[in-house]
Structure formats: C-alpha cells, structure tokens
C-alpha cells in the first residue's frame, strides 16, 4: 500500500507537471513532489526497520522490499529531492540566459518525475520483466532530457546514449527471456517464473548453462547502463552534455539502479551455478573500468565529462567489490554505492555552478573558484577530496574495506586497483587545483547558488564516514546475507 502510494506520487506529479507547464510554481511543485515521495520512502524504511523483517517482505506479487533495495529507495528519493532543490535555481538561471524555452521546461519537469518513478519501480519491482521495463522507461525518460539544449553536441550525445543503451537493454531483455525460459520448466508458465522471490527459492532446480547464457546477456545489457568499460562509451557524452541536474541524477542514481539489477542477477546465477563464476566476470569488468576511467581522467577538458569518467571508475570499484563477494567486500560495495551517489551528485551541483560562474564547462577557463564564490569552491574541493577517497569522508571507509578484502582474497590483482586509485587521485587534484585556487577570471557571471544541497550531501558523507548509524548497519549486514 505504501509502495503503491510512493510510486503513485511521482507518476501523478509527472502528469501534473506536464499540465502545469512553465508556471512559476512548477519548480516548487517539483520539489514538493520529490519531498513527499522522500517522506513516504522514509516512512516505508521506518516501517521495514521497525517490523524487523530479516530479508524480503512481499507486497502483493509485484513489489518486494528487502534490506538491499530499501536503502536504495530512500537514497533515490533523497537525492532526487535535493537535486530538485538544486535545479530550481540552476534551471532558472539557464532559462534567464535563454538556453531552454518554456515548453522544454514543462517537458523537463514532467520527465524528471517520470524518471524518478521509473527508478523506484525498478527498485521495488519483484518481477524481472517489470524491472526490465522500468529500466527501459528510465532510459527513454532521460534521453530527451539529455538533448534538452538542442545543441549539436547534446543531440549527438543523446543519440549515442539512446542507441547504445537501447541495444544494451535489448540484450538484457534477451537475458530475461532466457531466465524465464529456465524458470518456466520449474514453475510452469506465468508470472511466477519471473519473480525474484520465487527464483531465489527454486534456484537449485534452474539449469545452470541457461542461466550462464542469460547472465552474459544481463551483464552486457545492464552493464551498458552501469557504464562498465568497454560498454561505457555513451556515458561521458550523456553525462556531460545534459543539463546538470540530470547529470547529477544520472550519475548518482541511475547507475546505482543498473548495478542493483546486475547484482540481483549475479546472486541468482551464482546460486544455481555454484562457485563465483558470475563474480569473476564482474571483477574483470570492474577492474577494466577502473583502470581505463582513471587513465582517461587526465585527458579531460570538460569538467562534467571528467566527473562522468570518475563515475565510471567508481562504478567499476563497486562492481569489482560485488564480484569479489564475501562479507567485507560486499559491505564495502553497498557503502560505496551510497557514498558515491551522495558525493557525485553534490560534485555535479558544484560543477554546474562553477560552469555557470565562468560561463563555460571548459576547465581551462574555470579559475579561482574560492575567490569567486568560496562556498562553491570549497564545496568542489571537499567533493573531490571525498571522491578521491580521503578520510574522514565515507568513500574512504568503503574503499578501505574493499581494498583490504581484495588484499585478503586476490592479492595479485590489488596492485592494479591501487594503481587505478592513485592515478585517479593524481588526475583529479591536478585538474582541481587551478580551478579552485588562484585568482578568478575577470569576466565571470553572478549566480545565486543554493549551496544547501551540496553541504547537506557532504555533511552526510562526512558523518557516515566516521559513524554508520545502527539501522544502516543492520540493513547492510542483512543485505550481505542476501547477496551471499
């Protein structure tokens, strides 16, 4: 019941916003809608926690909640709320400078809510097919947002995003079909064959070879959306060319959702195949992504593009950790997903303000942010520190766990991880310093930056870095159990 209202809110508000159009109230309505769904999701989470359900709790046949997806739901609604707050000023500025027309703003807000709806659906859906549908929906909702500015580069980016993800998702559908094909022989045809809860129950009977085949398609399909090398090509374009709020939610949330789907599949396949076959594939992809992404960081000119690459790197780390398996690594990976989406979205906020300040996304022309706007400047510094994995920020905690775990389990590969991390660190700081320090460029524009979201996120990341509240611990540990 709660879940349906939760989903309902975003869906209805999407419709509403489509009607409201480009009134002054539209952004506020957007914020309100996201806030409401956030509140509901918190209530939901509280409900789950207080009922103390270890593992899954079914809602009808279609939705289910367990320790794994509940925190992602809260995270999603939270980040979408803060992003909505951020986009209020940001998009007003963009409008002011005539980069977007009123009609497109209508479209923007409607699609924003639809996107949230799709993500929540993907998280909560108990049905592999529905999961697939909502993933596709999420893609479609954002495709046209990426090309919102109608500049050649943005259109190109959107097209690549659309085609590559479309193809990827199609492959994922093939995987789904194979999965269903395998399950059908056990439970007979019908919805039952696609429910996670059932599949986990019956996994012993599922035919491993078909599941292996299915997993490959899932891997490539959802892997494309996670942005794993070499399926990542669309990500830097899409994340850098769209409006910044969209980049924030794409990097911060959508990648998580895709990874979520992938991990679910991995668990299933591993269970039926025995051993860590799927895990090893994921580790391979994760490692490759880390290294390639961190090396690419050096060559970036565009600030948002650079952070898009860093998202690839971090998704790589999380994938690697999930592939690694084991309590520490999985715990670390869950923490990493949380921390990364908080940090990365706030970084995109600051990056957006930075590029508005200096009227370009080209890092060569972004100078002396601390002088120009101290709050934004320090926000960017803290964000980069956090994303580079320096304590006491939370990403350090997760990387600490992941690295030590990998040192324990596969010492041979750890140097590669180390290399990737150091290179990424060096690259990020190399690019960061000229942007924040020194004297700002004379021709800079005035903005009124709402830094609340930025510092809210950073504060959370900081707090979680030194102290993980008990309910989160409980969920993570349960999730670790689930993902064994």
């Amino acid at each position, binding site marked *: 019941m709660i879940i349906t209202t939760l989903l309902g809110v975003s869906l209805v508000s999407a419709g509403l916003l489509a009607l409201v159009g480009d009134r002054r109230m539209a952004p506020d309505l957007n914020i309100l809608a996201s806030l409401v769904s956030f509140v509901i999701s918190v209530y939901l989470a509280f409900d789950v926690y207080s009922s103390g359900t270890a593992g899954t709790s079914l809602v009808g046949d279609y939705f289910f909640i367990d320790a794994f997806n509940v925190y992602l739901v809260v995270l999603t609604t939270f980040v979408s709320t803060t992003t909505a707050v951020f986009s209020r000023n940001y998009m007003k500025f963009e409008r002011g400078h005539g980069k977007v027309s009123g009609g497109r703003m209508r479209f923007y807000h409607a699609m924003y809510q639809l996107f949230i709806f799709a993500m929540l659906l993907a998280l909560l859906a108990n049905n592999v097919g529905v999961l697939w549908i909502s993933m596709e929906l999420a893609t479609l909702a954002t495709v046209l947002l990426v090309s919102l500015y109608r500049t050649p580069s943005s259109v190109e980016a959107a097209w690549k995003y659309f085609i590559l993800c479309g193809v990827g998702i199609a492959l994922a559908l093939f995987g789904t079909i194979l999965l269903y094909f395998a399950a059908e022989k056990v439970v007979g045809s019908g919805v039952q064959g696609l429910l996670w809860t059932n599949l986990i129950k019956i996994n012993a009977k599922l035919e491993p070879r078909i599941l292996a085949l299915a997993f490959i398609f899932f891997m490539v399909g959802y892997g494309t959306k996670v942005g794993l090398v070499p399926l990542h*090509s669309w990500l830097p374009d899409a994340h850098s060319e769209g409006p910044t709020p969209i980049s924030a939610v794409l990097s911060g949330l959508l990648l998580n959702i895709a990874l979520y789907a992938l991990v679910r599949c991995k668990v299933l396949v591993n269970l039926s195949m025995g051993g860590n076959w799927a895990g090893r594939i994921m580790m391979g992809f994760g490692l490759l992504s880390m290294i390639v992404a961190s090396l690419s960081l050096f060559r970036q000119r565009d600030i948002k593009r650079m952070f898009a690459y860093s998202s690839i790197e971090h998704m790589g780390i999380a994938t690697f950790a999930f592939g690694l398996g084991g309590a520490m690594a999985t715990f670390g990976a869950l923490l990493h997903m949380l921390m990364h989406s908080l940090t990365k979205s706030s970084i995109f906020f600051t990056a957006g303000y930075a590029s508005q300040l200096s009227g370009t996304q080209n890092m060569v022309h972004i100078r002396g942010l601390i002088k120009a706007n101290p709050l934004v400047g320090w926000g960017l510094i803290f964000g980069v520190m956090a994303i580079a994995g320096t304590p006491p920020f939370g990403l350090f905690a997760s990387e600490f766990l992941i690295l030590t775990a990998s040192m324990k389990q596969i010492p041979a590969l750890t140097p590669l991880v180390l290399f990737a991390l150091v290179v990424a660190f060096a690259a990020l700081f190399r690019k960061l310093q000229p942007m924040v320090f020194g004297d700002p460029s004379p021709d800079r524009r005035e903005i009124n930056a709402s830094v609340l979201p930025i510092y809210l996120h950073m504060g959370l990341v900081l707090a979680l870095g030194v102290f993980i509240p008990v309910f989160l611990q409980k969920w993570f540990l349960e999730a670790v159990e689930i993902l064994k």
Partner: protein
Amino acid sequence: MTSISTLVLFGLSAPFFHKHEKFIVSVFFPIFAAASLVSFAAGFLAVSGGITEKMILQAGLPGLPFHLRLDPISGFFITVISLLSFCVSVYSVGYVKSFIGRESVANMAVFYPLFIAGMLLTLLADDAFIFLVGWEVMAMSSYFLVIFENKIGANRRAALLYVVMAHAGALAILMSFGVLAGFAGGFETFGGYTFDAMRSATIPPFWAGVAFLLAFLGFGAKAGIVPLHVWLPEAHPAAPSNVSALMSGAMLKTAIYGILRVSFDILHVSQLWWGELVLIAGLVSALLGVLYAIMENDLKRLLAYSSVENIGVILIGVGLSMIFFTFQKPLMSALAITAALYHVMNHAMFKGLLFMGAGSVLHSTHERNMENMGGLIHKMKWTAPLFLVGCLSISALPPFNGFVSEWLTFQAFLMSPALTSQGLNLLIPLGAALLALTAVLSASSFVKAFGISFLGKPRSENCATAEESPWSMLIGMSILAMTCLLLGVFPTAVIGWMSNVSTALAGETIAKSAGGMGWLWLTPVAAERASYSAPMLFLGIISVVVIVFLTLHARKNTIHRVKPWDCGYGGLTSKMQYSSYSFSMPSRVIFGFFFRMRERVKIDLARTRAPEFPAQIKYSLRIRDRLWGWLYKPVIDGVFKLGRHTARLQHGRIHVYLAYSFITVIFLLLFAL
C-alpha cells in the same frame, strides 16, 4: 583526547570569525598552544609512568569502533610533537599576523589545528582504520597549509606532488594493514583491524615481509627516505614557515612512529633483512640528503634536505636496533633504539627552531634565497644567536643535543663486532664512516647557512632594511633553543625518562647502565666502554673562556674599528663576498657526480675595451636531482602515454561503440560456453 577535541573544535569554529582575522590570530593560537601543553603532559606522564591506557569510541565501521591507545611508544612521540607544536603555536601568534590581508588567515586557523590533531590521532590510534583516518587528516590538512599561499604556481605544483605522494603512501600503508588484518583473527567480522588482533596474529614469513615492505614504503614516502624524498624539498619551502617547522619537525616523526609501530610492536622484527634494508636506506638518505643540502642556496630548501639527512640518521639507529634485535642482543638493540629516539626528539627541536628562524628571516626580509641575504646578525639581534644554537645542535657539536644522539649512534655502530655475521661486521663500520662524513658535511652546510645569511655584508636592499621579529616569535624560538641545550647537557636524565619506551620496543633499556656513573657521566653500556659528560665539557669550555677573557681584559687595550684588508684596492663591496655558490664549490667539485648540473658562464664582450676586462660576466648554475630523471619522470610520462592510448577508445563514432558491445557479447559467449 581533550586537546585533540579542543583543537578540532576551535579549528572548525575558526571560519565563522573570518571577518576579524586579528582576533583569530591573537586568540586561537594561544588556545592551540594550551591544548598542545595538555597533550604534552599526557604523553610525558605516559612515558615516565610506563602506563598504557585504552579507550574505545563508539563510532566508525560496524564491529570496528575507534580504538585509541596511549602507551609509552605513542606517549613519547606525543610528548615530542606537542612540545614542538606548543612552541610553534606561540611563534605563530606573531608570524601569522603578517599574512593578514594577503591570505585568508581563517584557512590557516582551520587547518593548522586539524594538522596537529591529525598527528595526535595517528599516534593514539589502535586500529588500522582510525590510524589511516588520522594519517590522512594530517596529510590533507598539511596539504591545504602547503598550498596556503596559492597564488604562486610553484606552490601549487609542490602541493600537488606532495599530496599525490602522500596519498600513494597512505594506500601502501593501507595495503600492508590489509595483509596484517587478513591473517589476524576475526577478519570477516571487522575484528581483524585492531592492532591487538594483528599483534597476536601468526603471519607466515613471506607475508610478514610483504607487510613490512609495504609499510616501509608507505611510511618512507612520508618520512622522505631517498628516493621517495622528492616532494619534501618542494613542499616544505612552499608552506608557511610555522607549518614547515611542524611538517619537518613533527610530521616526519609520525612516519618514524609508524615504522616502529609496525615493525617492532606488531611484527616483532622477525627477519634480518628488514634491519639491513632500513640501515641501508638510512645511510643513503643521510648522505644524499646532506649533499643536496650543501648545494642548496634556498634557505628553506636547505633545511628541508637536511631533514632528509636527519631522517636518515634516525633510520640508521632504527636499522641497527632491528639488526641487534634479530640477533637477540636486547641491550645493544636498546642502545640503538635509544639513539634513534633521542635523535627523533633532537631533530624535532632543532629543526623546528631552524625553520622558525628561517621563517623570521623570511618575515622580515621576504627573501628565501641566501644569495640575497647577509649581515642579518646586525639587524636581528636575537634571531641570530637562536639560529646559531640551532646550527650548532644540528651539526652535532657538543654540548648541544645533536651530538648526544650522534654519539649514541656511533656507540651502537661500535657494538657491531658482537654480531656473528661476517658481512655485517664489515658493512657496519663503513656505515659508521659514512655517518661521520654526513655529520661533518651537515656541519659545513650549516656553516654556510649561518655564515652566508647572517654574517658578512647585506647582499640586497631587503636585507639591509630588515628588522627584528615580534616577541612572540622570539619566545617560541628561545624555548626550543633552551630545550636543545638542556637535552644536550643532561642526557642521562632524558634517557632515564625514555627507558619505558625502549623497553616497550626492544624489551630492554640502557637507563641503568647509562646512569651507571651517576647523572654526570653518560655511559651507554659500561664506564670502561665509553663515557661522555656533557656538563663537564660545557663547564670546562665555559670556564676556560671566562678565565682567559678576564685575564686578558685585566689589561685594558683599546679596539679600533677599521676597514677590512682589501689588498690595497679599496672599496670592498658586498658583491665581493664569498657567495653561497662559491662556498659550496669545493663540495660541488668533489661530489658532483651525484647531481645533474648545468653550469654556464656567459661573458659579455659588448662595449668592452679589452677582452680580458669584459663589461659583465653572467654565471648561472642549475643543480638537479638525478633521481627525478631516473625514477619519477619515466613513471609520469608512462602514465600520460597510457592516458593518450586509452583516450583513443573514445573514438567518437557510434558504430565503433556498437562494435565494442557486439564484440564484448561474442567474446563473453565464447569465453563462457
């Protein structure tokens, strides 16, 4: 604990006062000083009483709350560091004022205490996680302090180099902890990260070696062991002088602490080659460090390089102690470790003093290049003698403290015949000779430092118009100067105080034998073996000087001030003095092969009557560190090259991208089935 919290608290509250910066400076830094005094007391008692307190904060990762632990080892380092930070904080009251209006003092007031707090936290940490948190807090806050004057591009480059190397080192340490925790009990339940678990863990020799090596690399990168030292001469000069005093005097010591903690306390030095490695690394760092120091003309760079040298000396002691330890010679091991710890303390004191001195020179002349200094002894009446004290102590001249630790190290060296290994028997005396060489070279480099910058005639306008720095800076320095003298004159008392530390590390102490002949004589192992009495020497020299002085001044004969001998040409200008370059010329000739030197003389024959009297002669000399070209440049270039190649992946054509995923699918299908 309280001190850490106050530091953090006030540090974080600082930005809210960024409107009235004077207020910050004059109120906050005294508070920091008080806080460091508190921790000083704590550490001091911990060492003297040999107490071990544990404390667990309910925070951090599940199943891994923050374990804190105050034992003699950490207590010793806390004492040293907080004593230094006390003096530096006092000094800063005057020093930081000079930044008001130029830079944001609030930043300083935020990161300075965070820096100290980070160091203390590192020392108190009793599990891997909180240790690294403290470590990185220290690193990052010092990074922001290094880049404090961020308008200068060179500072930014220095800071970048520093922060990258620091982070790489931290990750290496993390790896080593990973290895240790992996073998410790209760890894899957987060329990393995506590140092206690690691201590009790049984680790196969190979992995123990790996852990040690990783830790040594990680800490070495922070300590500035050659060849990991490149960041040091860049970062220390870039930072404000009170910060460089802390970095060089205190931060490097945390690295030493880490090495001791891991190799002695956790891994209980199990293999011989560790000691040998540390010893050799120490020797190399000491020698190269001092050579670079001699070549330098930048006062602060010179000091930074000499820090490399002193870290080397400390490591020599540590290495010897490890070797003796593996040979089950606890008393000798205790001797060596005492020497090392003593030098840790000494270096903290005099290097802090010297950096502050350089700071006040910078503060009044805005010059860092010695070629533009000179004659400051007339302008800065008090700074000069204080700086001189620093120079005397660092050149290991009795009765100052530097000599004591050097002397102990020599004694440790001379214990080598007790070892049963032939190779070491031959190697170690050579090490002693190298150490001697280092000592004298550092003496000459500090003769140069003091002589060129404080003596002679001013070489630039800024120097001619310099004036003395404010009282707070002088107080900060003079406390340290006093400490230098006391540490030098009463070594037996200090060693007695340190006995718990060496017991905790080497399982034995030389306190008993050291004080064997009473407090007056320092006799490391036995009176007939070797003895040294600083008080006697001190008194002896002083008394002779006084007696002679009085006897000679019994008869009044007058002093005439005249021009110095100018070979009859007349008009000696300050340009005719021996410059810093020319002073180090002999050593350049002798040790030139260590450096990449480009020396060129440009003779301008334009509008000159006769070619042998050219109008002007330009002489330029660039001295580079060979290691940079050998080790670092290739790595950096390699990374960039890789970057270029990976960038090709992002081809831009969508068909290629599609082909990527297509090939991936096919490949996986083949690979899987």
